[in-house]
């Protein structure tokens, strides 16, 4: 992608820590579409009313994160690898 509007997975470190109870930006995940493996910190993040995380290799959505009534919720389309959610 050539646009300059995105952030990256580092920006979701606090939210993911809230959900999983530990640091997640260095966890590895495998994209469900192209099966490439990246650290969460290296994923691309587009911010709006919620956060959309995309695979940096194929650009497909790997996670959507939203905060509803002070509770963070995530929906993911990827396979967590080491060390993954514990």
């Amino acid at each position, binding site marked *: 992608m050539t646009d300059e*509007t995105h*952030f*990256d997975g580092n*920006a979701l470190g606090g939210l993911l820590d*809230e959900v999983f109870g530990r640091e997640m930006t*260095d966890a590895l995940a495998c994209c469900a579409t192209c099966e490439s493996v990246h650290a969460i*910190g*290296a994923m691309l993040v587009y911010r709006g009313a919620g956060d959309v995380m995309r695979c940096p290799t194929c650009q497909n959505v790997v996670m959507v994160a939203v905060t509803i009534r002070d509770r963070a919720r995530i929906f993911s389309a990827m396979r967590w690898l080491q060390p993954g959610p*514990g």
Partner: protein
Amino acid sequence: MARTAILRRLTWTVGKVIARVDETARVRSLTIDVPGWTGHLPGQHLDVRLTAEDGYQAQRSYSIATPGDGSHVTITVERLDDGEASPYLTDVLVVGDQIELRGPIGGYFVWEPGRGGPLLLVAGGSGIAPLMAMLRSRVAAPSDVAVRLLCSWRSAADVIYADELDAIAATAEGVSITHTLTQSAPDGWTGRRGRYDRKALSQLAWPREQEPLTYVCGPTGFVEAVASVLVELGHDPGRILTERFGPTGG
């Protein structure tokens, strides 16, 4: 260690501003004392939460610019004139004020001397903040990791940590610091001008054969451009770590 991490919960806490430094006309460094802070790694960030009188909340992430130092953390904030949070942090908050935050956060974009090098740090504007924590950590540690810091600024008036960077460049063994100005340069400027393009990075970055460990931080366009050129020059993408500030930076 892993078990400690699992048991730890990231919770909001209240810190107190104990120092404020005007880095440039638009940039302030705020040192905050956070009771119970258990230390952090260079490159980590914290989340700040501001609450208006009507209950409206804004949350932002700021990189920590200093290595772990007991209960103290320093963030460096650039004022974005249309921003919700940064004008309050740069222009309203004073020493003695309280601020709500949580952290430390981040395990990907972190470096400590044990991770080795040689280290290439590339900063776009206030993207220097987490890289400064890494550089300060390297200078303070008994470490011989060689470091090249490449900073990109719009103009000479935008240089953050100018005196400290000059002092480190003059005294620290194995550390070189390069500044480039992309928009305007004053008379007598002896540093570089223009962007870190392919030609500049082929001269200034470590040769790929030395397998450098690279950290790039700044506005998204800057980070994408620098990382792409390094990959084109044959650097291992797995050793190029990036942190993007989004479209506007800061």
